[in-house]
């Protein structure tokens, strides 16, 4: 395999493995938020706000992987 092929393979792996953690994280986050809203529907507004902030922060991890993958594809 030449360098380009290795870089492409690495990009795919980076994106796939990098999406694992945030996927699990967002799953937990939304699941727990739904639980919270079901228990206390009157607090749904606050819970939803916090959930979106949490999703934004968690999602950033996957996006770092995306940036690395793009760098690997286009720069390496």
């Amino acid at each position, binding site marked *: 395999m030449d360098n380009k092929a290795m870089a492409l393979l690495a990009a795919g792996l980076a994106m796939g493995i990098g999406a694992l953690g945030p996927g699990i994280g967002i799953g937990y986050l939304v699941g727990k938020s739904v639980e919270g809203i079901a228990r206390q529907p009157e607090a749904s*507004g606050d819970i939803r*706000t916090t959930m*979106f902030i949490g999703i*934004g922060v968690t999602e*950033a991890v996957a*996006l770092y992987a995306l*940036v690395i993958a793009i760098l690997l594809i*286009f720069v390496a």
Partner: protein
Amino acid sequence: MIGLGLIASSSEAAEGAAETFKPTDEFEHAVKPISIAGHELSFQIGPIDMSVSKAVVYVWLAALIVGIFCIAVARVAKILPTRKQMALEALYEFVEDKLVGAVMHGKAAATWFPYILTLFLFILVSNLIGLLPFFLGTEEWKGLTLPALGTFAATSNINVTVALALMTFVFTHFAGIKANGPIGYFKGWVPGSAPAVLKPVLFLIHFVSEIFRLVSLAVRLFANLLAGHIMILVFYSLTFMLSSYVLLVLLIPLEFGVIAISLFEIFVAVIQAYIFAILSAVYIGGAINQDH
């Protein structure tokens, strides 16, 4: 971001030409000076490149839309609001209550609310106009120079998002120092109950986390918009890849895929503007009230 549009790809498909399209070129096109009537709008002030690129035009466009819309609505504001005024008031109240009101109160809220609202409206508008196709380039087709449709979002360019994140970064520390004094502010970075030996370490950790807040704020917005535009382009190009008539059956589900992804990107555009604005509010609020 991706300047390849419908006309561009369809004419290529019609020609069947082996014209090589390199996605990497698009990263350069985004920062390349645009040219109007043969004149390249390239300026250089000292070491700083002040060229008018596609991203700059989109930033101007978003700023113009937000400015003109808000001024036009505010000048004729009535007790009995019109539809436009209702829309703007709903956004205003949303930012005031849900974004700023959640983290800041009183004088701090009054000081920083305009910044957060401006940030929210600007990012929202530049994300949304990024989804509209415009005539961004030209395409040679059978000797004719045709305008090519393409989509581009200013916020899918990392230079723009880093500039926005830097503003929040600077304002965070400015607000913190103004509210707590320079010594008090940096003292607040480490908990007062920590042992004296650990304090430099904790200070360093907090310093690194402040830098990463800046990086993550910029990269989150940029990568979300970039990924969204790439996804839309991938689905569009899938529909043009079908060169066999037998496979045309697949066109209908693929077109639905394009519509679904585009709708999802509208959601992402709104959510990302919201997240950027609320995180800015949380950071600034946290720097003002350090006793968390």
